[in-house]
């Protein structure tokens, strides 16, 4: 019979420790807090118990910064940590990394307390809300790099706006330390520079899963962010503290992606529509002028020199055609609505206007020719009898008669000799 293996105390203790740590690993335990104490070392020691059993627990100082509440005996809590062995005393205990109040009632109480505290500080004031940019093209996202949330957000953003610059700050979104991760990521994206808006969130989960978005550290990071933040915690009904502090709340990560930027196609349609309305207004104005000009050119004075009117008609027809072509081109080139066609159209219009001004000058000259007084400008004069009759024949006056001569400027009297 072989000799049974004989362990030394340290040896078996280490073995037990290894088995416990490997087999049990990191777990959540729910129970009632008792014998809570915090000596000067800063570490917290307590016992978790229920009606049938109890287990020792320690929370080291370094893990306490995420603590949402002041633990006290009698509280129902859930702790997250690793079961391990304290070799010196041979006792097993839970090394606690996170404690949350358990039960909806208790969680709700902690939630309401923090909500009231932050509301009193004015962190939820509408006046604090930063406006979201209409066209953010550099977007920061704080979420898990492996979750459904990032996949949904990227799918939707890429579909709505194919050319965006997106920067993901990867974080844990549940469990111990998630809140600190999220807060640090918000700060990091603000420091990164060049971003215009942030989406902070995760997919749906239980109240406990989402709890990090109810942590004060996250609320404070959102409040101090210079960039506007959309909170996107995937729990459509309940609000988190993050939702209240954020500049905009989206019910899910997908919804956040839809809220953050309008569809590119929508912007393009708006621009196309504006261009169309601009051109239509100009065209209407043009048609109005065309109509008036035609009316003028058909009027009595201009009918005589028919070629002038005809030239107008020709030019108007030609310009009208060019303009229609220009407009048609503008709308045909969907992607190039803004190319030089519009400027060419303006040049055409300006040219038309210039020619029209020249023609009007010419018409005015023409009119001047018709005006009988215009010849006076060229040095001619008109002489009348005192009764006003125009002298066309020297026989109409006798010596000694007074006549009035009209010049281009002014009149004078003279006596016939």
């Amino acid at each position, binding site marked *: 019979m072989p000799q049974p293996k004989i362990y030394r105390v340290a040896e078996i203790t280490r073995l037990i420790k290894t088995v416990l740590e490997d087999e049990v690993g990191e777990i959540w335990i729910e129970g009632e807090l008792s014998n809570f104490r915090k000596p000067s070392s800063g570490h917290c020691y307590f016992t978790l118990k229920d009606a049938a059993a109890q287990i020792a627990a320690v929370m080291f100082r370094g893990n306490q910064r995420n603590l949402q509440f002041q633990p006290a005996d009698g509280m129902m809590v859930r702790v997250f940590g690793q079961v391990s062995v304290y070799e010196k005393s041979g006792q097993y205990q839970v090394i606690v990394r996170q404690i949350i109040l358990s039960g909806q009632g208790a969680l709700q109480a902690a939630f309401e307390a923090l909500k009231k505290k932050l509301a009193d500080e004015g962190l939820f004031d509408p006046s604090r809300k930063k406006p979201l*940019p*209409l*066209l953010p*093209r*550099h977007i920061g996202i704080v979420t*898990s*790099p*492996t*979750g*459904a*949330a*990032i*996949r949904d957000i*990227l*799918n939707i953003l*890429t579909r709505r706006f194919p*050319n*965006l*610059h*997106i*920067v*993901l*700050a*990867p974080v*844990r*979104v*549940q*469990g111990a330390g998630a809140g600190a991760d999220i807060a640090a990521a918000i700060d*990091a994206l603000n*420091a*990164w*520079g*060049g971003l*215009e808006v942030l989406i902070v969130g*995760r*997919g*749906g*989960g239980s109240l406990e*899963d989402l709890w990090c978005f109810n942590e004060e550290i996250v609320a404070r990071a959102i409040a101090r962010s210079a960039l506007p933040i959309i909170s996107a915690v995937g729990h459509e009904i309940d609000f988190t503290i993050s939702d209240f502090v954020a500049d905009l709340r989206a019910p899910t990560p997908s919804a956040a992606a839809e809220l953050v930027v309008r569809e590119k196609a929508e*912007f*393009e349609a*708006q*621009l196309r529509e*504006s*261009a169309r*309305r*601009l*051109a239509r*207004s*100009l065209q209407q*104005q043009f048609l109005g002028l065309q109509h008036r000009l035609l009316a003028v050119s058909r009027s009595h004075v201009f009918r005589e020199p028919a070629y002038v009117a005809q030239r107008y008609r020709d030019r108007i027809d030609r310009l009208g055609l060019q303009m229609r072509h220009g407009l048609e081109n503008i709308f045909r080139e969907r992607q190039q*609505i*803004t*190319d030089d066609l*519009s*400027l060419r159209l*303006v040049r055409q*219009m*300006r040219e038309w*206007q210039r020619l029209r001004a020249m023609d009007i000058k010419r018409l005015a000259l023409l009119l001047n020719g018709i005006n009988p007084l215009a010849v006076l400008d060229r040095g001619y004069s008109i002489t009348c009898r005192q009764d006003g009759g125009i002298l066309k024949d020297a026989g109409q006056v006798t010596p000694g008669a007074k006549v009035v001569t009209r010049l281009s400027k002014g009149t004078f009297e003279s006596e016939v000799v």
Partner: protein
Amino acid sequence: MKTPDKQPGFEKSLERLEAIVQEMESGTMSLDKMMKHFEEGMGLVKFCSEKLNEVEHKIEILVKKNGQMTAEPFAAPEADTAPDKETENI
């Protein structure tokens, strides 16, 4: 660190464009003023369209390397490898 992209006035340009369109449609303008407005409006359309296309598509992930934040290309997780619920120990 990148310099912030101020995107000079996409929003303002769009507002101005809207105002110009409305003013032109009120139809009480001289032809000259109208053409000036048309020209400005078309310029704004062009400017805004350029803004829409200015930025290159890029998805990055922040990574801490030797205490320094750097950005690396990021590919979205495939649907079958990413469970709907977030996983622990990410």
